[in-house]
């Protein structure tokens, strides 16, 4: 890493202890390069969502430091939650416009940007709908559009597709990858699916629980753009096996 291009994100020696003394995270070291698609993979309760919240600044570490080469402007970090987390009383267009509204972007300009974003995720015909009128996958698309409407340089995704059915999940995986290629944001994606992590990522970090820590990293150098043929290729399977082994070993240590 040359000095002209510092990493986008550097976590060193992160520790997080709760008030009752439980150690949630211990000794997290992680460097994230610009433009990377990094997956945090681990069993539930290993603190991967906690790492994401620390990066977003929604939580503060007990010890260690986070260096962000992300601008301090609002909306330079996008966040997609496990649930769509839309405001049920607001139409889709108003939900997606929220980050712009909060930043005081003039309404006409904001609306134009929202419509563009909705088109990207295929929801242009549903801008006037309420969240409850959409399917789970569509709600997730709206959530994705909201996170991207500010054109963040860093997108954090906390198991966003975990609650969706397999078919919808695969489709949204492809759409997410396509948005990542178009926009060039850096993505950190939390998941507990080995296959999902390998398919999406350029790098996978494996975590183990109690206390949460990163135990292994693997570069996934499958060619881009990835598609159906990626999933059936031998390299993909090899990567999945490696990651699966790493995860298995991590769990074994934890037990």
């Amino acid at each position, binding site marked *: 890493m040359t000095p002209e291009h510092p990493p986008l994100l550097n976590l060193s020696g992160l520790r997080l202890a709760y008030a009752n003394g439980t150690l949630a995270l211990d000794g997290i070291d992680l460097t994230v390069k610009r433009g990377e698609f990094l997956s945090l993979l681990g069993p539930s309760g290993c603190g991967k969502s906690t790492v994401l*919240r620390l990066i977003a600044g929604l939580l503060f570490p007990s010890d260690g430091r986070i260096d962000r080469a992300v601008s301090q402007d609002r909306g330079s970090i996008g966040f997609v*939650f496990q649930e769509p987390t839309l*405001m049920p*009383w607001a139409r889709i267009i108003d939900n997606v416009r*929220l*980050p712009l509204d*909060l930043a005081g972007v003039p309404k006409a300009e904001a609306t134009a940007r929202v419509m563009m974003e909705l088109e990207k995720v295929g929801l242009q015909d549903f801008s006037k709908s309420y*969240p*409850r009128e959409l399917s789970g996958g569509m709600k997730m698309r709206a959530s994705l559009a909201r996170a991207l409407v500010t054109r963040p340089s860093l997108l954090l995704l906390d198991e966003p597709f975990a609650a969706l059915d397999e078919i919808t999940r695969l489709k949204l995986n492809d759409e997410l990858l396509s948005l990542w290629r178009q926009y060039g944001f850096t993505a950190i994606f939390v998941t507990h699916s080995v296959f999902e992590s390998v398919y999406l990522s350029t790098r996978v970090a494996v975590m183990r629980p109690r206390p949460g820590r990163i135990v292994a990293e693997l570069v996934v150098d499958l060619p881009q753009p990835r598609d159906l043929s990626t999933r059936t290729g031998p390299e993909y399977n090899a990567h999945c096996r490696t990651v699966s082994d790493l995860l298995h070993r991590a769990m074994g240590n934890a037990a």
Partner: protein
Amino acid sequence: MTRWGKWVLPPLVGLLMLLGWEWGVSAYQVPAFVLPPPSAVLVALWRDGPLLFSSAWLTITITLQAFLLAVVTGVGLALLFSQSRMAAAAFYPYAVILQVTPIVAIAPLVVIWVGYERVNLALLILAWIVAFFPILSNATLGLSAVDPNLRDLFRLYQANRWQVLWRLQLPSSLPYLLAGMKISGGLALIGSVVAEFVAGSGTASGLAWRIIESGNRLNMPRLFAALFLLSALGILIFALLSLVQKRLLGRWHESELGR
């Protein structure tokens, strides 16, 4: 159940009951001062109309004023509580004390303090005390019942306190607030009636006083007519607030999705 059943069945049951009542009273020759037939109540409603409606007007005025005052003060205090934990800790117990103390027990005191010459003000205060708490407690609950992820989202985008309040907390609290208003609307009416009973002795002349007066004179048809108007008033308040609820929550809240 079909729409038809929902709108036709209740009035049908009511009509049958009234007919049975009318028939029973004449068949068993029940004296009118014990139970007047519905027809006599209808006649009383017509004959004593001006008197009863002016009384009803007073009751309506006090009920509405108390209700609006309860909404303003209840929501205002809930907003204060939501912004300052200290204010909540300091004042909430007193709101509870106000709520748990039976209104009948404090009514004489309030009437004396305010003075018999301003008995309508005393009625207003008493009705307000009864109507106030459901609004406060529901609005307080609603303002804190925010999806934690949405709260985090607002934090991530550095929303200020007003943006959080206006765009997140208030809309989130709306279903709770409306439920509180529905309870409180009925209570405002009950409060104004109870207050009038306690204040008594002809200083106030709302529907409750008409009931006491008619009872003393064994004028049962008029008593029933006043009672009927009170119920009608209660139903009207409930219906209006249900309409508001449907209007405001209709398209997004589970309670109004009607399945």
